[in-house]
Structure formats: C-alpha cells, structure tokens
C-alpha cells in the first residue's frame, strides 16, 4: 500500500508552522485596512477578534483542565 509520509519529516512540519505563523501576521496587518460596520464599539477595534480568539481558547483549555479534576472517572465507573 502506498503511504503518505509528508509529516514524518520534521522540516515539513516546521515549514507548515512557518506558513501558519506568516498567515497570522498577514491577518493582523490586513485588519488595519478593513472598513468596519460594527454593532459594538469594541468590534471595530483593530485586531479585536485575534485577541478574543486567542484568549477564548486559552481560557477554554484552562477551565477544561479544572473541569477534568472534578468530572474525570475511570472508564468502568458506571459498570
């Protein structure tokens, strides 16, 4: 069977990450040139969504880790 091995090479993973970071920078720059029509004042603030997206996901993981301490049980808990 033919196999794809593109991500077996660390340099390919690195390349992908560089492309990813570059696209983030592009998104940050583009935002300065976008005409906004916002419902809320902060929505029009430059790069609001970038900050909110990042903070949301970090908060998500942070809270999930706390939640895990409370709700985690063994797989045979109900048996």
């Amino acid at each position: 069977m033919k196999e794809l091995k593109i991500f077996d090479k660390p340099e390919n993973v690195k390349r992908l990450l560089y492309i990813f970071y570059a696209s983030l920078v592009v998104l940050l720059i583009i935002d300065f040139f976008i005409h906004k029509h916002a419902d809320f004042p902060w929505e029009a603030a430059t790069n609001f969504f970038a900050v909110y997206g990042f903070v949301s996901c970090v908060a998500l993981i942070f809270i999930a880790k706390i939640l895990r301490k409370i709700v985690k049980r063994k797989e045979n808990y109900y048996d």
Partner: protein
Amino acid sequence: MINSIPPAAIFIIGALFIPFLRGKIKSAYMLLLPVIAFYILVTIPEGKHWVVRLLDYDLIFGRIDRLSLVFGYIFSIISFIAILFAIQVKDDVQHVSGLIYAGGALGVTFAGDFFSLYIFWEIMAVASTFLILARRTEKSHAAAFRYILVHVVGGLFLLAGIIIYVSKTGTTEFAFMELKGLEAYLIFFGIAVNAAIPPLHPWLQDAYPEATVTGAVFLSAFTTKSAVYVMARIFPGAEILIWLGAFMTAIPIFYAVLENDIRRVLAYSLINQVGFMMCGIGIGTALAINGTVSHAFCHILYKALLFMSVGSVLHVTGKIRCTDLGGLYKTMPVTCLFCMIGAASISAFPMFSGFISKSMIVSAAGHGKLVIVWLMLQFASAGVFHHAGIKVPFFTFFGHDSGIRAKEPPLNMMIAMGIAAFFCVFIGLFPQPLYSILPYPVDYVPYTGAHVVGQLQLLMFGALAFTLLILSGYYPAELRAINLDTDWFYRKGSRLVVYIFTGISMKIAQICDFLFIKFFPEKLGAISRKPIISLIGLYYKTVGKDTAPLEGYSENPKPETVNLIPAGISVLFSVFFLMLLAVIFFVGL
C-alpha cells in the same frame, strides 16, 4: 398521482418491504425512496395536504410552507446520503429502522396538528433506538435502554401538554404559542428533551457514540433538528431560549476538549451547534430565524460528513478513541480530506457552509445588542474550531502515529462522503440557492471584508493557542477516562432508587413470607386439624397452666394428605364466569 402520498408514508411504508428484497434491487429501491420524497416536496404547492378526519379531529399530514419545506428538503437529502453510506450493511434491522426514523422526522416536519406530530415523534424515538441496539454490544444495549427511557419521558411531557392544550382550545392544530401556562411549559419541556438543551442533553452524548457506524449518521441528522423545527414553529422569540442556547453553545465544548471517544467529541459539538439554533429561535427576528434554519440545513450536512468520516475510521480500524488512533492520513488521505472539509464547515471557515449560516445568528445577536450572548457565541465559535475543527482531524489522522495502516472505506461510503462534502463547499461558495428557500426574504451579505477577516482572526488565533499549547505540552493529554455529565443523576440515581425500593420491598416480602407462608398456615392448619385440643392447649398456654395432660393428644407433625382441587380449576372457573358476565353485559347493552 404520486403526490397523494405523504413523504413520511413513503419512507415508513416503503421501509417495510426492504427485508423482502435482495442485492442490487434492494440497494436501488432504498435509494429511490428519498428521491421520490424529494420529488414530491419540490412539486407540491404550499398549503394543507393529506388531511384525514379521525373521530372529531383533523389529522393534517401535510402542512407545506416555507419553514417546513426547508427541513423537508434537507431531511430527504440527508436520508439519501445516509442510506448510500449504509448500503453495504447486511443488517435489515438497521435499514428498516433508519428509514422509518427518517420517515418519522419528515412526519414531524409536515404535521399540522398535535396528534400526528406526537405519533411521528414517538415513531422517531422507537425507530432510532434500534440504530443503537443494532451495534449488539452490552454497552450499546444499556445506552439504548437509557436513550428510550429519556425519550419516553420527554414524549409524555409533550403528550401531557398536548392534552391540556387540546382540551383548552378545542383544536389540535398548532402554530405559534406564547410560553405561558402549564400546557406551553410542558410542550416546551418535551421539545427541549429532544433538542438536548442542557441539563436535558446527556442522552445524546451517551447514546450516539454507542450507535452503529451508519446508524450514528442517521441519528446525527433527525432527532435534534426536528426538535429545532418544532421549536422554531411553536416558540419563536421565547426569550429564555436565547440564554439556554447561549449556555448550550458554551458548556459542551469544555467536555469536548476532554473527551477521548471521537464520536463523543462530535456528539458534544452537535449539542454546541444546536445551541446556536436555539439562540437564534430565541432572538426570533427574521434574520435570526433565517440563520437558524440555514444553520440547521448546513449543520445536518457537515455533521453527517464528520460522523461518516470518523465512522469510516471505526469501520476499517474498529477503534474510535483518540488514544488508539493517529497518523491515519498516510493510508486514508481521501477520508482525511473529507473529515477536514467537515471540520472546516463546522468551524465556519469562510468558503465553507457553516460560515454563511452561523454568521447570521451571531449578527442577529449583535443587531439585538445582546452583549453577553454575542460574546458567548463568539467564544463558542472559537471553541468549536478548537475541538471539532482541529482536535477531531488532528488526533484521528495526524498526531502521534498509532501504527495503524488501514485502507480507505468501501466505495459507497466514499461517494456518500463526497456528496456531503460537495454540498458543504458549494453552499459555502454559493449561498444564494440556500438563501432563496429560507422562510423570510434574505438581504444578508456574509462575505464582507470585516466579516471574513474577523472570523479568520478568531479561528486562526484560536488555532495558534492550540498549537502553542500542544507544543508546550500544556494541552490536556488524551486519557482513557470518562467524564461525568448530568446523566450521572439518573445513572447513579436509578441505582439508589433501586437500592431503596428493593431494600424496602425485600423486607416486606420477608415479613409476608414469614406471616403468610409459615406462621398463619401452620397455626391455622394445626388448629383446624384438632380444633378442640388446640384451643384448649392455647388456652392453657395463655393462662400459664401445664400442657402435659394434652401430650397424648398433641397433633401429628405431618399433616395428612388431603384431596385438594388444583388451583387451575378454580382459575378456569373464574375466567369462565367473568367471560359469561362480559357476554351478558355486552349483549344486554
């Protein structure tokens, strides 16, 4: 001529013939049913159809208007895809119940009166249970049992509400209702169970991951979305739904991050997506309802696509846990691509279907100046990308190499996924056809610069957080563990109830056993055999005299054999006389 049959009947009656067909004819027949249903829906004019008078009420099987038609279209389309995905399955139970289930969903969608709504509602509950049972494992049997119990309870609430409503108004027809009065609350509760509104949601994440590979595709489409339809029909603008919906988008994503079973991750993200729809129904403006309906349309397609792609993995590898999978892109690149299209759609990436529908709901929240709700929806949008968009494809197809080298699934499964993937991309690129069938006229433009860039920033920086957390090792590890949810209350609570009741009833049984099997019969038997001696003995005992003079008369410990009439004869007699009584009663009437 074919228009005289309701689409629900085509599925439900059509399904009954499946066991008698074989081979290619069977496959063709099964695929033909949704095509016929779709054709009927395309050609039928709006209005009331298929009205049957039963007793004093009208059963309306065809309320055709713009709201019900959209759901009818998508239910037929997804039935076709799900049947195609399942066609190689050699288990008629699954085929028949899947089609009856789809028919039930169509019946609910076009029901114009409460009675037919309720009938189809219960048909769905029963038929869908078989899709879980058909996995034929101990776990799936238990999950199916809990699933049907929850739905029966929900159905009873709905029925109670319907009965009060009908006795109050004198009609079974229903339309918009205010959330006021007992009957409205009961009906609301019944629908909320099927819509999986927290804390009534755990049946979904409990049962769907235990269903069969192909059954889960059916399940992901019908129950919650038909509840969305009924909710949008009866309670648009009910303010409580805004908040319930907002919480519904947020709560499941924490669980989805922790969950190990990939289909359970998808089940949680399903609840999250239905939360957006509930929120839209609660807002209730034309934009919000349009957003809800279009989101349901898109959601059914991409959620089915996701369930199909990870279902394919389960089908070929037999494994579904994050801890067991990884690196499958190497030998299943096409399935991987389909999964990523589904992931991009659910994450609402521009160019994919979720983007053009979800943004309507979020914009409606913005236009309504609902600050906290808007922030919660944006948080949930970033969160859904995190778990359904990245986690599902990453841990299944990339991540650590599990060493599994599985082949792509069978061709029919690939085609089914291909069709769903095509719709996801097509709707994302050309939203106009979908917009043109929505209940209200659409003047919404999804592709504005601010919108696209804002959404991309939200998603990409969410992805950045994922990347950094994974690279730093802070991301919660995949563990072989389960996470408690609100089903704990009935799964553990039921044991408490059983413990209490068996405890009490065992005690009562023991006492009864002692009194009626041992104590009274023995004593009575002894007394009746030698009545005078026993009575004298008893008398002596109570007054404290010596019983020695009676020794010689004391009874034989072994009772003599007695000719008894067998109990069966007396039962026969009583049945006979009861029958006689019944005959006299009815004839006399």
